[in-house]
């Protein structure tokens, strides 16, 4: 009989623990109502253990002292809309690049690949100046500047070079026969995209949705630059309220962070099946 291989399992278990430590620390600390105990535990292994006085006090503080519910729904709206519009726009662009032959196609593709390597920090300030000048139709009239709004947090992030690239890679690998069969059946490009290509693209849709969701959900830099006040603030911005206080309430911060993290876990669980499949298939297709 073959001996069970223990070493790889140990290594995997260690890696899992390594990645779970911060989550565990956050989760456990969120329930430690006594701030002094939390600070004492931080230097020891007790930081990861649910010991001492455990309560929901920190969560009550979050509910009382911050507008968590408003920030939560702002995040859901802003991120949900960005991801949804992004899926549509980026997949359509990628499909056009993958299947239509038009002059300049290679240049566009090259530009998109080049854009992937430019970090957001490099364009943040020019983008801020731009959105500050752009017009928007609001309450029956044109106004200048997008600051302090929802759309300023959505529109600049809808088109995403990396998402286009992921979709493009997936579409060029789709068998062309299917689209040609649909063409023979009388389907035009729109119909083929909606009825044939998109339903077959669940793995890449899941991948793009998860990656975009994670990037937008945790983004702080842009909201800090374009949003003032609570009304349009998303979760990372709302969490900043705690850092302006003294003494800093780490228990409250942890409770807030835990609540803010739950939706990302939920999104991953929902898309996990396709997401994992996509990662696996991209690994074996070569």
């Amino acid at each position, binding site marked *: 009989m073959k001996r069970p291989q223990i070493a790889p399992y140990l290594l995997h278990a260690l890696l899992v623990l390594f990645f779970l430590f911060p989550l565990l620390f956050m989760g456990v600390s969120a329930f430690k109502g006594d701030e002094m105990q939390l600070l004492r535990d931080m230097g020891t292994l007790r930081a990861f253990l649910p010991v001492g006085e455990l309560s929901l006090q920190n969560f009550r503080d979050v509910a009382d002292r911050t507008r968590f519910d408003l920030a939560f729904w702002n995040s859901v709206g802003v991120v949900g809309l960005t991801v949804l519009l992004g899926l549509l726009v980026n997949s359509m662009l990628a499909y056009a690049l993958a299947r239509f032959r038009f002059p300049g196609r290679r240049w566009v593709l090259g530009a998109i690949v080049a854009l992937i390597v430019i970090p957001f920090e490099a364009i943040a300030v020019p983008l801020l100046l731009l959105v500050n000048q752009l017009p928007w139709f609001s309450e029956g009239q044109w106004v200048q500047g997008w600051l302090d709004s929802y759309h300023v947090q959505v529109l600049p992030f809808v088109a995403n070079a990396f998402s286009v690239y992921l979709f493009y890679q997936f579409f060029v690998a789709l068998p062309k026969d*299917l689209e*040609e*069969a649909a*063409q*023979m*059946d*009388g*389907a035009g490009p729109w*119909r083929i995209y909606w009825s044939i290509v998109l339903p077959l693209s669940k793995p890449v849709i899941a991948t793009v949705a998860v990656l975009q969701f994670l990037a937008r959900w945790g983004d702080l830099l842009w909201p800090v630059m374009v949003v003032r006040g609570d009304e349009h603030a998303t979760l990372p911005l709302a969490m900043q309220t705690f850092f302006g206080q003294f003494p800093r309430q780490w228990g409250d911060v942890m409770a807030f962070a835990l609540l803010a993290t739950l939706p990302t876990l939920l999104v991953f669980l929902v898309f996990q099946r396709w997401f994992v499949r996509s990662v696996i298939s991209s690994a074996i297709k070569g």
Partner: protein
Amino acid sequence: MARVTLEALRKRYDSGPDIIRGIDLSIEDGEFMVFVGPSGCGKSTLLRMIAGLEEISQGRLLIGDTDATHLPPAERGVAMVFQSYALYPHMSVGDNMRFGLRIAKLARAEIESRVGRAAEILQISHLLDQLPRQLSGGQRQRVAIGRAIVRKPAVFLFDEPLSNLDANLRVQMRIELTRLHRELGTTMIYVTHDQTEAMTMGDRIAVFNGGHVEQVGPPMALYETPANTFVGQFLGSPRMNLIPAGGASPSVWQPEHAAQTALLGVRPESLGLAAPGQGWPVRVDVIEHLGDTTLVYLSAGDLPLCMRLPGGRCDLQPGQQLHIAPHAGGLHQFDASGRRLSTQ
């Protein structure tokens, strides 16, 4: 149903050479035409040009009386069965067949009646709710054909539809497609590189080579009087023996076109044993017993030859020296360019 006329059709990509080099061909109403040829000869490209999936660079395509040269695929009245079947994986068998009809905005009752009828003809009624991945290769092939049938096209196009099936299923589907053609009476154009399919299924065969048609005609006419050595060798298995005319004994053939004849073509079944001193002296290399016939691989000097003898048994031995000669009417004469001169 419709007649398909190709007038000087050409295809080239960008500024490259012609892939299809001026093809004139008329496929009659209700005819089963087979395009056959080796890989890369342009037969599939031509089929895709007829389907509308490839642009026609030059020339004219008529389907019925309509100039279809620049019509979109769906308006040509043609349906295509792909080599890969190309069934929509996320749709049930029934929805695969309904897809085109829904786009054509047919009434629901009409759609159901057409799908039901096609499923009945192809014996796939019990599969309508299944997904393509739940089907076997043969069943998928039937669904692909069903999807084509429901559209009631004027012309069916088949692009190597049996090449993904195993040998037994291929024979079965070959017979079913022939039966289907008889039942529907629709014009069918069938692309294959398999000469058995070409010989057994087609009313006529067009043999392609290097982007042009070498010969068109009924299967047996092509087999018995090939226009050139390419057609002679492409149709028939094992292929036709080609022997340089210079080395043949005068007793083997009557020098009718002696001056021009450069090659002699003899099919394996047209060769037989000859009396010593007559015909070609050869040595037996390998013997294959096929049950009903025996294939004898021979060499005449450096030239490999093949002879098919009736019956599964023969007393020849490898290494044995003997003489062989063609039967009467089994000798084809070709000139130096490979063009056929006559058959004796």
